[in-house]
């Protein structure tokens, strides 16, 4: 009952005209920047932050939070339509979403992404409402050794990400780890693979990396074809909304993705990036038709899209209850709260109930607004696919270039994106996949620094990974995952060898 009372308090706080307006502006701006590849919520939020100085703290956070989760809704659009992921979490959406679009099923793909995001956003909110404080104390138990075991577990997912040869996927993962090493050594500060270029000191940015590898390479790959009058569509558009059959397939992936995403999102050390990859891997593992994945399976869109939206809600847990921002966006929100004299932290919910519950209520409202805003847009987005390549491609390139530049206002990021575009093109020509590389690129540096931090903590003893319960459980799960995928491979070896030869 308490929660209902509190929620009532929250809704009564936001159901004022100006707060409603700020909520709408937030989700509207969020949707727009989410659709533009590369241009993330950080830029828009830091631009709008000074504008919030004059309004109340609640209105400020309502608007800024709206931009953040609104951008997650829009993020899937370019992945599905033109194979350009705006961020790491949309990479897996490309795998099946773009294939669906090519088969004329862009509408259902976009639709299920929007509905999935809505359901996940709501489930995440319920989680944030009910279990935030106890979860926060569990999150603090995650020290470097625990992150190490989590990252190990995460890397085993690449077995499921590959739709072709596992060996090639592992090769690409190793390559991704090496690219992740570029920059300064995390513990000694010496330069690795920097070649005297100061811009490389901080390593390769995620945005130019994924946009090049997927977006630019897609453009280059299609240039080989005859462009005269062709569009992305190979077949006619079949319906704009998911059918009952799509829903039946997607319901469980959405639920699983939401719960998984929320819990991974809670971890302040950046478990959120894992969530969409993990969701994809789980769906492929439990599916009765794993061979459909990578060829336009709607489960491969529903699960990851839900997971990354639930992770967005999960990320609010450490911010509100621990005052620890788990990413740059959360740091901006924290800044906005601090400027208004509101300090999150262990006593935040009891000291500022109207703000906490106001934000929760605004997010319920914002999710509804986003669904209403996004569903009619699907019809318009799908028409983009009818645009001939010769008009669409220059536009895609232009948006990619602007997006890559806007992240750090840096021309070196633009050059990097083009380099990765070329690399991605060659990889596609020789049938190497990009997704395992992105996963390893994201997890590799975290794996390395958590390993080295753990060993410094234990004065060099590897026992630290077995004596801590969470860590040990993670390591054992990793070993089981590897064994469970290797043993059937050995058994099936006779069958698979001729199959690979025919490829």
């Amino acid at each position, binding site marked *: 009952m308490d929660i209902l009372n509190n929620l009532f308090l929250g809704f009564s706080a936001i159901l004022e005209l100006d707060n409603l307006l700020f909520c709408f502006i937030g989700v509207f701006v969020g949707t727009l920047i989410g659709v533009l590849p590369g241009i993330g919520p950080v830029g828009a939020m*830091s631009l709008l932050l000074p504008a919030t100085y004059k309004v109340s703290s609640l209105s400020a956070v309502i608007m800024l939070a709206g931009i953040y989760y609104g951008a997650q809704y829009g993020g899937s659009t370019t992945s599905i339509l033109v194979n350009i992921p705006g961020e790491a979490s949309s990479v897996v959406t490309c795998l099946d979403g773009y294939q669906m679009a090519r088969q004329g099923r862009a509408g259902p793909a976009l639709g299920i992404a929007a509905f999935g995001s809505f359901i996940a956003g709501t489930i995440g909110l319920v989680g944030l409402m009910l279990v935030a404080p106890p979860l926060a104390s569990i999150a603090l138990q995650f020290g470097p050794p625990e992150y190490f075991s989590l990252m190990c577990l995460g890397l085993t997912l690449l077995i499921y990400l590959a739709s072709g040869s596992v060996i090639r996927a592992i090769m690409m993962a190793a390559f991704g780890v090496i690219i992740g090493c570029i920059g300064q050594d995390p513990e000694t500060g010496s330069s690795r693979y920097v070649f005297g270029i100061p811009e490389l000191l901080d390593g390769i940015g995620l945005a130019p990396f994924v946009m090049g590898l997927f977006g630019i390479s897609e453009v280059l790959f299609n240039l080989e074809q005859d462009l005269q009058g062709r569009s992305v569509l190979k077949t006619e558009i079949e319906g704009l909304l998911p059918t009952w059959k799509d829903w039946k397939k997607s319901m469980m992936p959405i639920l699983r993705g939401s719960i998984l995403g929320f819990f991974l999102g809670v971890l302040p050390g950046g478990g959120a990036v894992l969530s969409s990859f993990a969701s994809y891997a789980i769906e492929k593992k439990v599916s009765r038709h794993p061979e459909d994945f990578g060829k336009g399976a709607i489960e491969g869109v529903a699960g990851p899209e839900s997971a990354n939206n639930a992770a967005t809600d999960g990320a609010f847990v450490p911010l509100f209850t621990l*005052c620890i921002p788990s990413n740059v966006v959360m740091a901006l929100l924290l800044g906005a709260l601090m400027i208004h004299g509101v300090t999150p932290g262990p006593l935040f919910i009891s000291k500022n109930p109207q703000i906490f519950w106001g934000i929760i209520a605004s997010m319920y409202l914002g999710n509804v607004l986003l669904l209403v805003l996004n569903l009619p847009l699907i019809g318009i987005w799908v028409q983009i696919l009818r645009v001939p390549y010769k008009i669409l491609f220059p536009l895609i390139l232009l948006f990619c270039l602007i997006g890559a530049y806007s992240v750090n206002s840096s021309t070196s990021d633009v050059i990097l994106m083009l380099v990765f575009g070329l690399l991605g093109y060659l990889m596609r020509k020789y049938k190497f996949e990009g997704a395992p590389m992105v996963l390893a690129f994201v997890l590799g540096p975290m794996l390395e620094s958590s390993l080295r931090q753990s060993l410094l903590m234990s004065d060099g003893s590897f026992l630290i990974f077995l004596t801590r319960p969470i860590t040990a459980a993670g390591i054992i799960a990793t070993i089981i995952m590897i064994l469970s995928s290797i043993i059937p491979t050995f058994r099936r070896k006779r069958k698979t060898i001729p199959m690979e030869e025919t490829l």
Partner: protein
Amino acid sequence: MGEDVDRVYSEENEFGARLKGTQSRDCRERFKMVPQKNLNSKEERVMKKVKQILTIIAGLWFLFHGIDLAGAKDPDYPTKPITLYIAYSAGGTTDLGSRAFIEAASKHLGQPFIPINKPGGSGSLAMAQVMHAKPDGYTLSTIAGSSCCVVPFSQDAPYKDMSGFTMLANFHSHFLPLMVRSDAPWQSWKEFLEWARKNPRAAKIGITGALATDFKGIYLWQIAKQEKVDFTFIAFKGSPELLAATLGGHITMYGGAADASTVPYLEEKKLRVLAFASKEKLPGYANIPSTQELYGLSAPIYVGVCGPKGLPGYVLKRLDDAFAKAVKDPEFIRVSDQIGARVVYMSREVMTNYVDKTFNEINDIMKRFREEESKR
């Protein structure tokens, strides 16, 4: 001006060379020859005329543009918005502080600032932008301890000393409290040191960045040397990760800067400050010693504004004046309090001397650190 005239000529030369397509002869002569050769086609003649006119317009544009730049007289400075590169990512203490400061300064300059976040290379990428900018006062950057004191010692740094910059003003100081969890057995810095001396390498101090690149950590290393204790330094990606590890009890001590996240834990006494590694102390902690008092050493955890070298006198005068007034702005002071920064004003001269002094100090410590590292 002479330079600009040359530029116009070279424009023409290039143009001529392109028309004829040969390399060796005198360019101006060639330029004259071109129209004669193509007289037979009326259309081409018109085209040539158009191209000539365009060349002249381009030349004049260069000429006037050049005069505007080299004229060295812009008494109404600033007449357009000033770009300020913020060397750290959006939402951090430095970012919020810088934005509040330029907001206050623009009131006195009559022109807005355009803040651009350009994080990277411990703040050196933004500084490099300024170093290569025209010294006209329209491109400035934030400058903090890391970008002026540690970066020049790293092998791939875009600059090796501070000679390419003009220090303008310092506006903020941050705090560097050395904190342990409140259930830790040590009540004071002295007790902690005694324990650390008896248990070599047992004290795990978390810092933000590797020792060789963290200007705050390197001071702790130097202090440990002086006290003859052996700390284990563990580098974290940023202060959120470091704070989580400290609160979770995975490391012994928080050795990073205080920021928005640490405020509630100090208020609720969940973290205990044993000493300050910065010269400034948080309000209410006057009885806690600072390393400045104990060892005469403290990390230069300051934030200011700098520009390229060779800024003209009228720019300096306007900026000095505006910055000195900006630090007294009530709105700026209010925001500074909220984000956990202290307003510490240093004028151009004071700041220049201070940066010189710290640069040499860190240079010495770094040398010792490198020697010890190479021995191991």
